[in-house]
């Protein structure tokens, strides 16, 4: 290959290269180990476990028999499960598009404001988002209290008499939706304001010079350019609202007459009150699949959007 001296140098270089490589691998091992450890034991293993459990008749604590697809067959004949699914869908209809529209209106209004006024208004709209869910439900249970709730006169003005909203099968889901929108809307407002800020100012100026009305400016400039963010908000909301549990548990406990019974409520009852770990896991798997499918679709949609 060449003079002996050169080959010796080459060997040294190769050795130090191998040494560096070993050090890199050791560092990588040490750096990833803590995360990997937690991830494997508390995430991947439970994921596997919930899949495995869904094929057994196991109680919550203890072993069960492999029963194949029996839990899933049972689901198909479980009327309560279909009630739950329907209520989840109903709740999605009540929240996802309304909250996005409200957030868009608020974001458009807030982005027109300046300086401290903008900061103040944004703070007020965002604040509920940082509250714990049980604080939110306590406050709203009081707002809507049947006897002394400050909103009852408003309800009475519409229906003629006060309504115990969380004990009324027609009012319960819409009212939980109102509470949920109040609680989580600030997040959507923030994302949409960020989206609005990314639209170049000169596009509006150009539209104005062309004589576009505010209405036309919104539909021709703002709406199409904001669409990626709007789509993101819609899909994030869809996934979030499918996971409904806390508000229902705290405000109506699934009732009255199962009119606010949702999938996670059923999973909770089956596992922790009826001691059916296997069946509860099958219920969880359905939710799991629905949300994974929605997520994959969202990912694909956004990628397609990004390519354009």
């Amino acid at each position, binding site marked *: 290959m060449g003079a002996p001296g050169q080959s010796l140098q080459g060997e040294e270089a190769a050795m130090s290269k191998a040494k560096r490589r070993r*050090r890199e*691998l050791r*560092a*990588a091992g040490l*750096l*990833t180990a*803590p*995360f*990997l450890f*937690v*991830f494997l034991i*508390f*995430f991947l*293993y*439970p*994921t596997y*476990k*919930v899949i495995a459990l869904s094929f057994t008749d196991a109680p*919550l604590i203890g072993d069960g028999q492999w029963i194949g697809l029996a839990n899933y067959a049972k689901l198909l004949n479980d009327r309560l499960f279909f009630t739950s699914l329907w209520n989840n869908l109903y709740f999605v209809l009540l929240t996802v598009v309304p909250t996005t529209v409200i957030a868009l209106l608020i974001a458009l*209004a*807030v982005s027109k*404001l300046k300086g401290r*006024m903008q900061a*103040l208004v944004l703070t*007020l*709209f965002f604040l*509920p988002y*940082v*509250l*714990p*869910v*049980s*604080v939110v439900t*306590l*406050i709203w249970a*009081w*707002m809507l209290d049947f*006897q*002394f709730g*400050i909103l009852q006169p408003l309800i009475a003005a519409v229906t003629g008499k006060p309504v115990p909203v969380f004990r009324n099968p027609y009012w319960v889901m819409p009212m939980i939706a109102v509470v949920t929108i*109040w609680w989580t809307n600030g997040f959507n407002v*923030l*994302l949409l304001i*960020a989206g609005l800020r990314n639209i170049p100012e000169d596009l509006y100026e150009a539209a104005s010079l062309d004589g576009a009305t505010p209405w036309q400016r919104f539909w021709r400039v703002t709406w199409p350019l904001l669409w990626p963010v709007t789509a*993101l908000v819609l899909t994030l909301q869809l996934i979030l609202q*499918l*996971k409904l*549990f*806390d508000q229902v548990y705290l405000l109506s406990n699934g009732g009255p007459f199962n009119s606010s019974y949702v999938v996670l409520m059923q999973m909770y009852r089956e*596992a*922790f009150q009826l001691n059916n*770990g296997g069946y*509860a896991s099958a219920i*969880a798997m359905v*939710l*799991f699949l629905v*949300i*994974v499918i929605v997520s*994959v679709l969202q990912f694909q949609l*956004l990628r397609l959007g990004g390519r354009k």
Partner: protein
Amino acid sequence: MTARRARNFAFSGLVLIAAMIWIFPLYWALTTSLRSENRIVSDAGVFIDEFNISAYVEVLSTSKLPIWYLNSVATSVITTAIVLVTGMMCAYALSQLRFPGRKTLYLLVVASFMVPVPALYVAQFILMSDLGLVNTWWGIILPQLIVPVVVIVYKQFFDAIPKEMREAVLLDGGGEFTLLFKLYLPLNWGITAALAIITFITTWNNFFWPFLVVTSEDMMTIPVGITQVNDAFGVAYARMMALALLAAAPVIIGYLIFQKRVTEAVMISAGVKG
């Protein structure tokens, strides 16, 4: 020109009124909490005209709120610290080192975004029960340590740091840990603070998991604990609202102090989810 200014002024006023209506439930909780129970059921003026703190005194002295604060602070601080350190280290390896399984690991982290965590609660509860961690801080903490967004955000920020700076430290004889803690971390204090705050708030507010894994009142966190008082007080509006506000105070104050960081964190973590 003045007509336009007047219009802008009116518009600002309208938006401000809308914002005040939006926050009214919180204001109304405050008003209620400062009144005597008798007054609440007899008349309901909208303005704060009484400063009766007896509801607060009673809630703090009769409920286990102080213990729940302690549990919430401990579990949230420990969770946040572990999530950030493990996430940062893993992100550094993913971003700067070559090792077998790197792509697989990254894909796993990204894919775990899609998994709805509550669907795992049954299995996680069984695991905690097998480990004897039901009704303990670690039982509350361990399953909450998986926050893939932290890894992904850190990786993006580490990717953006110029390679030349890295070479300089390596020539000075520094190893990977020196690089991470002396170069990459100091360059990313801002994002670290933002991630810490959002992780802390999320953990602090988590209801479903602590509700499942804790049954003993002495181990409850704030969001779970206050639902117990609900049953114990019966009808006691001022005390319920005082309780709600005392429970919410840390996050409200934290948000008002670190507002910019919270906003930044929300946007960064959502941007990643896209």
